[in-house]
Every structure is written in structure tokens, then in C-alpha cells.
């Protein structure tokens, strides 16, 4: 898990530096076409989520550049593990050299991944780590805990002394508490200075500032209903954590219908273009932006590299996986927390 040492100041330029460093680690070959016979698979959760659409775009572009032949697969819907297992099997049969996998069920897919690795295929988990993490050869992901921590710390600094008496509504993902949901939620709490108790469970906290947690299923519709429910519990809510941007947009609508939109601070995670625009216009205070395109292109590079000389991408220092970065996007930067403005955020946004 994350600790304080990662809070080292990171400006925009140092971020770029970090990315360059990551690229250097991967040692991209300058000679395109060296991997002519390398074939790879990209398996995402769904074909419909813009996050994965962007990821696919990034992977295809990089594959073309490196001459890797890439086939893409996806589950039918969120949670379609069976579809992903079939895709892995197809890739094994197809003789792929590497698989980039965004697991929809990070535990259930492990058996299929093992089969692929036994067949000599490099498996890289993207976005969501497998459980256990070392079930994959490497993991390229957003540090979701860090993404949450960033907006938590920003909210605390922005509210100033009011943070001590904040009334916080949590717009979480779903009742089953998938890892990404837990990491972001607990990261936010850590950043805001709430004792998260057990870091693997949402809801065991006893900080009086917490109004409640409700489920959004990551959609506008769910966000609105969840926000309404939480406002019923306590109309004095003045800070909203949203696990993603559609949920934040839905929460904003609920606040607006009650005339509360201007005196409630909303923070979110994702960095999709509509979400960043919402930050630019002030509906949302800040969002943590993640980089699906980068994950995918780094993944393709890693496969090409592995095919060439057998080296694997190194995990980010201090972490068990390669962090593709989460950057705070806001137009109201606070001291001590690195951030980019929405103009830059919009250049890098997805979806």
C-alpha cells in the first residue's frame, strides 16, 4: 500500500520526466518492424466503456508502430468473466506472444491466466491487478489508492479549517466492493485525514464526518439517486466524493435540483473528457486523471521487448506494479499537492 513517501512534489514537468523514465525502462526499439512475428492480444472488460475504447486505440496505435499484430477482445458486459476466459483460450490457440488483460473478475480469471503463462505467453494485467498480484508477469495500472488520496488531500486543503466539521457523502461503485472501489474510497479517506480502519473494507469507519456511503454503479442515474438518498440522511452535506465522473455528474444533478450545487464541493476520479470539462466549469472541484492510452501502449511495448530479449517491465519503485500515473486535475491548485490545470487535463483526457 501507499505511504507518505509518494507525496514527493511532482510538477507537470517531473510527471513527464517520470513517463519518459518509464519509457526508457521499456527501452523502445528505434527500429519499427523488429517484432514482425510478434502477435498480441488485448482483452478488456467491455467494448462500450470509453475508457477501454481509448485503451484499445492506444494499443492499436502502438502495435502498428512496432509492427506487432494485435487482436482485441472484450467481455460482453462488466462482470463477464466467462467471455474473458474464452478470449484467453482463443489467444493461446492463436499462438500469441503476449496478452494484455483488464480483468473483470481479478480472482476468477487467474486459472485461465496460469494456462496462458504455462503455454509461454507473457500476461500483463492492465488497470486492475490480478489477485494475487503476481499471477500476472507484470501489472500496469493506475494507483487507485493514490488517485483517491490526491483528491482527498486536495479537498482537505481546499476546505481549510472547515474540513474539521465537513459532512461527507460517498458515492461508491457497487455493494460487492470491488478492489478499485475500495482503493479509491480508502485512498480518499487517507488523503482527507479520516481513519480508514481496515483498508480493504468500506464502511467500517466511525468518523462522524461521514454522512454515508451509497452505490452508484458508476452511472449518472445511480449517482443522482445515491446523492438524493444521502441528502435525505443529512441535508447538510458539503463535500462529495464520487468514485468516478459519471457518478459525480449524477450527484451534481441531485444537488442542483435541491439548489445546493454551489455550496457543495465535489471531487471525483477518472479524467474522462466530460469529467475534466465539468472541473473546468466548476461543477466538480477536482478529479484524478488516469491514462488508459498510456497503459495500453506501455503494455504493447513490454510485449515487444519481452519477445526481443525476455526482459519484463520493472515495477515502480516502492510499489508492486508499474504505476502509469494518476494526476490531479483542478483549476484551484493548492500548495503541496501537484496538479495540472484543466487545459492540460483536456489535452490528455479520454472518452
Amino acid at each position, binding site marked *: 500500500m501507499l505511504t507518505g513517501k509518494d507525496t514527493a512534489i511532482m510538477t507537470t514537468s517531473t510527471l513527464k520526466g517520470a513517463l519518459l523514465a518509464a519509457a526508457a525502462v521499456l527501452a523502445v526499439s528505434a527500429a519499427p518492424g523488429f517484432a514482425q512475428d510478434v502477435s498480441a492480444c488485448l482483452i478488456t472488460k467491455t467494448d462500450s466503456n470509453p475508457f477501454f475504447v481509448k485503451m484499445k486505440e492506444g494499443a492499436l496505435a502502438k502495435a502498428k508502430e512496432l509492427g506487432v499484430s494485435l487482436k482485441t477482445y472484450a467481455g460482453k458486459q462488466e462482470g463477464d468473466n466467462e467471455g474473458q476466459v474464452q478470449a484467453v483460450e482463443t489467444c493461446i490457440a492463436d499462438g500469441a506472444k503476449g496478452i494484455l488483460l483488464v480483468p473483470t473478475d481479478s480472482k476468477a480469471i487467474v486459472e485461465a491466466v496460469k494456462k496462458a503463462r504455462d503455454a509461454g505467453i507473457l500476461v500483463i494485467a492492465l488497470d486492475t491487478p490480478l489477485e494475487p498480484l503476481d499471477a500476472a508477469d507484470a501489472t500496469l495500472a493506475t494507483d487507485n489508492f493514490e488517485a483517491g488520496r490526491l483528491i482527498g488531500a486536495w479537498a482537505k486543503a481546499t476546505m481549510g479549517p472547515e474540513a474539521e466539521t465537513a459532512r461527507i457523502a460517498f458515492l461508491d461503485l457497487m455493494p460487492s466492493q470491488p478492489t478499485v472501489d475500495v482503493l479509491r474510497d480508502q485512498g480518499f479517506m487517507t488523503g482527507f485525514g479520516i481513519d480508514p480502519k481496515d483498508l480493504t473494507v468500506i464502511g467500517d469507519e466511525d468518523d462522524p464526518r461521514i454522512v*454515508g456511503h451509497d452505490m452508484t454503479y458508476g452511472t449518472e442515474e445511480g449517482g443522482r439517486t445515491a446523492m438524493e438518498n444521502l441528502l435525505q440522511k443529512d441535508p447538510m452535506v458539503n463535500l462529495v466524493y464520487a468514485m468516478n465522473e459519471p457518478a459525480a455528474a449524477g450527484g451534481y444533478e441531485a444537488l442542483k435540483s435541491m439548489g445546493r450545487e454551489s455550496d457543495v464541493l465535489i471531487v471525483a476520479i477518472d479524467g474522462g473528457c466530460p469529467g475534466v470539462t465539468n472541473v473546468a466549469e466548476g461543477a466538480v472541484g477536482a478529479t484524478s486523471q488516469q491514462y488508459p492510452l498510456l497503459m495500453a501502449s506501455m503494455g504493447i511495448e513490454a510485449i515487444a521487448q519481452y519477445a526481443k530479449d525476455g526482459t519484463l517491465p520493472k515495477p515502480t519503485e516502492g510499489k508492486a506494479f508499474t504505476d502509469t500515473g494518476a494526476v490531479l486535475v483542478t483549476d484551484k491548485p493548492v500548495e503541496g499537492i501537484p496538479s495540472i490545470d484543466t487545459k492540460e487535463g483536456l489535452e490528455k483526457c479520454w472518452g
Partner: protein
Amino acid sequence: MAEAKSPAQEFEKGLTGSSTDVASFEREGKTFIERAQHALHSNPALVPLIVLMLSLGLFGALLGSKFFSAFTLTLILQQVAITGIVGAAQTLVVITAGIELSVGAIMVFSSVVMGQFTFRYGIPAPISILCGFAVGGGIGWINGFLVARVKLPPFIVTLGMWQIVLAANFLYSRNETIRSQDIEAQAPLLQLFGAQLKIGGAVFTLGVIAMVVLVFVLNYALTQTAWGRHVYAIGDDPEAAKLAGVKVQKTLMSVYTVSGLICALAGWVLIGRIGSVSPTAGQFANIESITAVVIGGISLFGGRGSILGMLFGALIVGVFALGLRLLGTDPQWTYLLIGLLIIFAVAIDQWIRKVAG
């Protein structure tokens, strides 16, 4: 009728002196249970209404004024508006003994058409909205054609249509969300149903009013017009209805088309509710609408039930969902209780049918 006539058939001699009552419709000596069964049989919306009152009372007692305020009660209405409207479409189809799995997909695709036509092509919002209705009605018409004319089972037709429309929705929208702020600035008509009417603490959105008006209009159509009687007759026994002179195919086509149009209306109301136009909305609308219909005491075997029951069913789900959240229970309890309610509702339906026996 023939009286005191000597039996025409030898074997009927034994009948002489037995009761000549054939069409005596009132049986005597009914127990309370039988009376209740009969009352429920003739008023299918009674059970959900009672359950709704009980659940309102229960949560009112547990939560007090936090729950029993004009604001909270009207908030429940806002939260069930979409389900109520889609449930109305579902009700029509279920009464004909069909099932409509594509309602949610039609709804979200119609809303995407309304939004994208306005923003991608710059078509004036009123025309885009009409296009959205045309798309919804058109998809409903195709469903109706396949069910009524090609005689495919409604489950299969709408299962396929669900996938097709949802895929078309994602392909066409390119998974893009149109932001609430943009809609507000450029085409506020799309958000019409989000407009609010405040009466004291009570907040009614136009979406809520649309739902209530729609349900009452359809209730009128189903109970007071020939079309409505035909819809019930088709669900009851399509062969009998046809022989009795009902234009079965035409009526079925109209039911599916109207259902598609109602889904398009739901799509418009959806924009008002969530502010934005999002292709990922409404994923559970089909299941939610079927839940409302079943809890509302409408028989999935067709021909029975009242659309008012569906409205009560949707409200019961809304009351439980909000009430349990306010109590601070794990959301899984909501699903568990709704599951129990569904089974309870179907058991009641079966029991009521026994009155026919």
C-alpha cells in the same frame, strides 16, 4: 326454460327433482377468506396498494418525520419516475401475455438520438425529440411485427432486440456522454422533465407528473375503451379473442408500438433526471420494470392485473430502497426484500387464480 318436462333421455330420469339451477352465480356461505380472494380477484391493484400502505407505515414508524415528510415522499416519486414510465410500457406488453426485454435499450437509444441529433447535426431540439419518438415507436413497431405477424415468441424477439438496440446505441453514440451543462446552455428543452414544481416541502418534477398522467391515461384506455378490453382478451386467450372478433394482430402491433413510444418518453424524462445524455444509462430498466409489474400484481401469464398496480409496485420498490438506505442498512437487504416481494406477489397471483377453479 323447459320445466316439469319428462326427461328426454332415458338416463336423465335420475335428474327429475334435482335442482334446476344452472346459472345461479352467487354461491352461498362464503368464508371470509373466500370473500377476500374474490375481492382481490376483482381488484388486482388491491394487494400492492395494501403492501404500499403497510411499507409506508412501517418506515414512517421507524424513521419518523425524516421519512414522513412531503419532501421525502415526493423524492420517492422522483426516484421511481423512470421505472414507472418504463413499467407502463412493460404493463401493456405483459397484459398481452408477452414480455418486453428491450424497454431499457429503447429508452436509452431514444434519449441518445434526441441528444446526438441536436448536438452532432445541429437539428433543432423539438425535431430531434420527435426523431427520438420515431425511433422508439419504430423499434416497438418492429417488435410488434415480429411478434404479431411473424409469430415469434415475445421473449425471443425482445431479447434479440435488446442486444441489437443496445449495440446500436453504443456504436451510434460512440460511447460519448453529452454533458448536462452543454444541454442546459444549448437545448434546455431536452431537460424539460427535470423542471420542478414546489408546493410547500413537496417537490414534483415534470417527469413525475408525466408518469402519473401517463399511468392514468393508460388506465383509462385499458379499462374504458374497446382497445383496452381487446388487449386483455388477447392476453387471456388469443384464439378466443380472435374468434370473438378481435383484430389480434393489429392490436398486438399497436401495443408494441405504443410501448416503444412510451420508452422514448422515458428516454426524454431520463435526460431531465440525469441532466446528461448518457449511453450507459438504463441498463437495468427492463428488470426494474418487470419487477414493478410483478409486484404490482400483473400476471405474467397475461390478461390480468391493473396498471395502477404497476405504479404501486414501483412505489413499493422505491419506498423500500430509500427507507432501508435511511435506516443505514446494507444495500443488499433491499435486493433481498424485493426478491421476497416478487415471490410473494406471484404466489398471491396464483392463489387469486384459484377463484376460477
